[in-house]
């Protein structure tokens, strides 16, 4: 029973971690809580369904499922990244030197806009994922793990590993870290800070897109308001791990996923959504810098 919950929690946690990375990367560079990031995840879920339905109608799913799935994921990532890019350029970039309240409210505006945009274009009713993954799985330490769960955990882990390598080893990744630490100095060594910021939004959106598709496939249903609650939870995960810290977001996501599924099984499933908020509040009050975060430098 407990082990089963661990598997469920890990699946959920991987998804939270993928979304949390977007929050933490943007916060690391701009000190902005990108409130609309959860909506990108929601867009990812919808786009995944839309593209897969398109390929199904075109007959591609029937003839070769892997290609259809691959194209769906690819297109979804591209489109979500484009949304992330557009969001930054229109709603945040002009406010870069404004008081902190302004971009946060602008972000709330974007969030409301995107929710209603999807509701108006796609309808207010639940959307069904057009392909049903088999509920078959394998025995693993006496518990059942479906193939889809295994895929979700593996994909999350792989993406996190790739991101880690990208940030640590590549030229752009190093430039991102440099920009997060000192934007002026970064521009003085020749880094185009605007492009780095755009890249941050694009990568974060791409990860959220994958999270969105996986959740859509996992639950089989999505709705236009799933972004808000998932966004808050992923933000909690980011804060839990230490906002601005990439390993922290991964750890925070997994811890949150585990707490939620174990809490739902052993304490109360009605309050499942409240655990994230309670953890968030407790963490902020006890150690605002999070588990892996640098100690709070500015307190004001």
């Amino acid at each position: 029973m407990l082990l089963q919950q661990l598997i469920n929690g890990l699946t959920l946690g991987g998804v939270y971690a993928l979304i949390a990375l977007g929050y933490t990367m943007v916060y690391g560079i701009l000190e902005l809580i990108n409130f609309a990031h959860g909506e990108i995840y929601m867009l990812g879920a919808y786009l995944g369904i839309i593209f897969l339905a398109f390929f199904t109608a075109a007959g591609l799913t029937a003839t070769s499922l892997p290609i259809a799935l691959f194209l769906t994921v690819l297109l979804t990532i591209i489109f979500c990244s484009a949304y992330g890019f557009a969001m930054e350029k229109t709603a945040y970039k002009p406010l870069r030197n404004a008081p902190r309240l302004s971009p946060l409210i602008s972000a709330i505006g974007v969030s409301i806009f995107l929710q209603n945009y999807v509701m108006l274009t796609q309808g207010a009713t639940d959307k069904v994922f057009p392909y049903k993954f088999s509920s078959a799985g394998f025995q693993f330490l006496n518990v059942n793990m479906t193939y889809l769960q295994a895929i979700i955990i593996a994909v999350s882990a792989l993406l996190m590993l790739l991101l880690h390598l990208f940030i640590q080893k590549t030229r752009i990744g190093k430039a991102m870290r440099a920009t997060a630490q000192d934007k002026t100095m970064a521009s003085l060594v020749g880094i185009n800070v605007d492009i780095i910021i755009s890249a941050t939004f694009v990568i974060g959106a791409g990860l959220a897109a994958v999270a969105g598709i996986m959740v859509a496939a996992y639950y089989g249903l999505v709705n236009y308001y799933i972004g808000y609650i998932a966004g808050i939870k992923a933000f909690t995960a980011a804060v839990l791990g230490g906002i601005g810290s990439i390993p922290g977001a991964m750890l925070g996501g997994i811890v949150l996923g585990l707490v939620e599924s174990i809490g739902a099984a052993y304490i109360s499933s009605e309050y499942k959504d409240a655990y994230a908020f309670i953890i968030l509040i407790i963490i902020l009050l006890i150690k605002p810098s999070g588990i892996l975060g640098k100690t709070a430098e500015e307190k004001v």
Partner: protein
Amino acid sequence: MLKLSSVHTSYGPIKALRGIDIEVYKGEIVCLIGSNGAGKTTTLMTISGILKPEAGDILFKDEPIKDTSPHIIVKKGICHVPEGRRIFPRLTIMENIEMGAYSEVRTQKSELRNNLERVFALFPILKERAKQMGGTLSGGEQQMLAIGRALMSNPELLLLDEPSLGLAPIMVSRIFKTIKEINNEGVTVLLVEQNAKAALKLSNRGYVLENGAIKLHGRGGDLLHNEEVKKAYLGE
């Protein structure tokens, strides 16, 4: 090579530069001295594009750069080592140095390696600590890292803002020697220094800045013997 004509720069309501004319010719070392708050740092920041001048013109190799972004100005060949160390504290020393060569994507690998060798020869401590985080270095070591980082970018014009700040006397003379060496290799230098005597000795020409305006300018040696300069900046 670099020409500022009646440049005005403000921080909001505070006017920091009120019409500055400076000219730097190829191959020179030019120094900029002045008391605290005179506007030296502001001048360099305006040249490198961090601050936008309100009025006036800045020409680099006869090309206007006053509306160019800092990262493009770097690519054009101006490298600015700003005041304070401003190394990246959570990047390793090696990564900090690599960042110095960020805009040199087209430079040969071997040349970059030569630059690296030169930096390490100049500041062996950096080689020893290459894997350590920049923020763990002492103040003086961070200053070395900042200069080392700048040398990685093969600049045509190097803007140095108080490179000797916080360094032990022996390091100061090494830094000045290094500046001379770099200059001999063909890099033009615009140097801001509190250490006016050493700076003027090193420089071909100098400008004295006061309250956001150029008060005096002349050959380095002449300024060194100028009574006003002696009284105000050399403490004699």
